[in-house]
């Protein structure tokens, strides 16, 4: 198909162009505000503050751990969803999407109900071992994995479905076991989808706030991630909060740039 001729189609209608321009402004203005209001001169000083370094290291570490857990647990789940004819697969897929639509605070409350000191699982665990999960870095990783893993599963499942089962069938007729097929045939084909899913999960974890503060608490170096620090700083020194937000914005843009090749590239 050739590129549609502008003369034949006429001008783009204002009813579409004007709202589109508004949408661009709507997305751009808050970011412009953040850049304009950030205390640029204080930024080097701000970023070298120990609590900022602590929060940044914690955020990056937790995001990596959440992405890693999403891979270890989520890839097998994505494979099952894409390749195994389970009864109730639709319900299983719906379950995976629940954390995507759940308000993060509700996710935090649910985690507390399950893993808190008196929770469904946390109660017996505490009684048997004395271990409590909330208020630890492990709790942050758990909360973030709960929120971020669905992003990975959906991305990986999409890639697995697109790669087609016929290759699996061919491999099977050649005598490969299903595990070997997964390892040597399926996995190499869906690597870009896995990478994109990992980045999405990582970025979602980096921005997590509600479930973290509800389930894991807020203590410097243990559970106070960058978004929690930004929120706290907003009460004390709003300009500093703008500066810290800028750091998160830059990180997000970097992730977007990494994803660009895959997503925007596919659209071109």
């Amino acid at each position, binding site marked *: 198909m050739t590129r549609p001729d502008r003369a034949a189609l006429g001008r783009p209608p204002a009813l579409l162009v004007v709202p589109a321009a508004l949408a661009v402004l709507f997305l751009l203005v808050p970011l412009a505000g953040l850049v304009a209001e950030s205390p640029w001169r204080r930024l080097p000083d701000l970023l070298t503050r120990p609590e900022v370094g602590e929060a940044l290291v914690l955020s990056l570490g937790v995001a990596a751990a959440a992405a890693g857990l999403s891979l270890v647990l989520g890839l097998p789940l994505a494979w099952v969803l894409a390749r195994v004819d389970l009864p109730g697969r639709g319900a299983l897929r719906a379950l995976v999407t629940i954390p995507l639509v759940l308000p993060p605070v509700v996710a935090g409350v649910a985690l507390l109900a399950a893993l*808190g000191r008196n929770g469904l699982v946390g109660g017996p665990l505490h009684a048997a071992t004395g271990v409590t999960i909330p*208020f630890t870095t492990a709790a942050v990783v758990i909360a973030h994995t709960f929120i971020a893993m669905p992003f990975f599963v959906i991305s990986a499942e999409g890639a697995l479905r697109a790669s087609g089962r016929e290759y699996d069938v061919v491999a099977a007729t050649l005598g490969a076991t299903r595990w070997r097929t997964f390892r040597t045939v399926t996995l190499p084909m869906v690597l870009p989808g896995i990478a994109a899913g990992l980045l999405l999960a990582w970025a979602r974890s980096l921005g997590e706030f509600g479930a973290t503060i509800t389930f894991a*608490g807020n*203590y410097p170096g243990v559970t106070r991630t960058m978004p929690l620090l930004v929120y706290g700083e907003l009460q004390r020194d709003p300009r500093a909060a703008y500066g810290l937000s800028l750091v998160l914005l830059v990180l997000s843009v970097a992730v977007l740039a990494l994803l660009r090749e895959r997503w925007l590239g596919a659209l071109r």
Partner: protein
Amino acid sequence: MRRPVGCVVLLLLASCGSGGSDGQRTLDVLAAASLTGAFERLAADFEDDHPGVDVRISLGSSATLARQVVEGAPADVLATADERTMQVAADGGGVTDPVQFATNEMVLVTTAANPAGIRSIEDLEDTGYVVCVETAPCGVVAAALLERNEISNPPLSYQSDVKAVEQLVLADEVDAGLVYASDAAAHPDRLLALPVPGSAEHRNPYLVAVTEQSDDPGPADAWVELLTGDRGRAVLAEEGFEP
């Protein structure tokens, strides 16, 4: 078609329907979380005395609320749990002439069963406990009291406001927490309150002020009058505050 669409746009930009079109006026009160019980009771009284006025209370950390007033959040009255946060609102041009209407004192609370066997603040040295974040008034007092009592064991978490501390203790997720006497008084059957040495020196004053942006100061002034009058003092005393 026009009106609903316009309303949706307004809802996105600001708060649509504030005050309403049926002659009902709304009094927006921003109050420190510790005032929850007292203000809910006073709001019911106020609405009985002022038919046509709907009291809408928004609770949170005084620091958050003061910031919201400075940023122009819809509010007619601001009540904070210390002078510092009220000063933030005043410095930002949000309020003038705050008046003090109560004081509060910090106590150590555990659940009524007290399974950890906490007897005094010294026991925090080997107990998991929570306090307010340092930006909130309750966090400032808690930090001062922990220092004065030489507690070196840090808290498990800094909660955003005092109700968040109270909730964790009530839910038995932690063994203890530092809250106000009024918070402990709200749950006499479920919480055990222990005095903290030095708390009398760190009593925090509660201040109230009508905001600069209040477009209808009549009900706002009436709220301050109710609060500082006999009825307000009586309710606050019943809720565990002191004058």
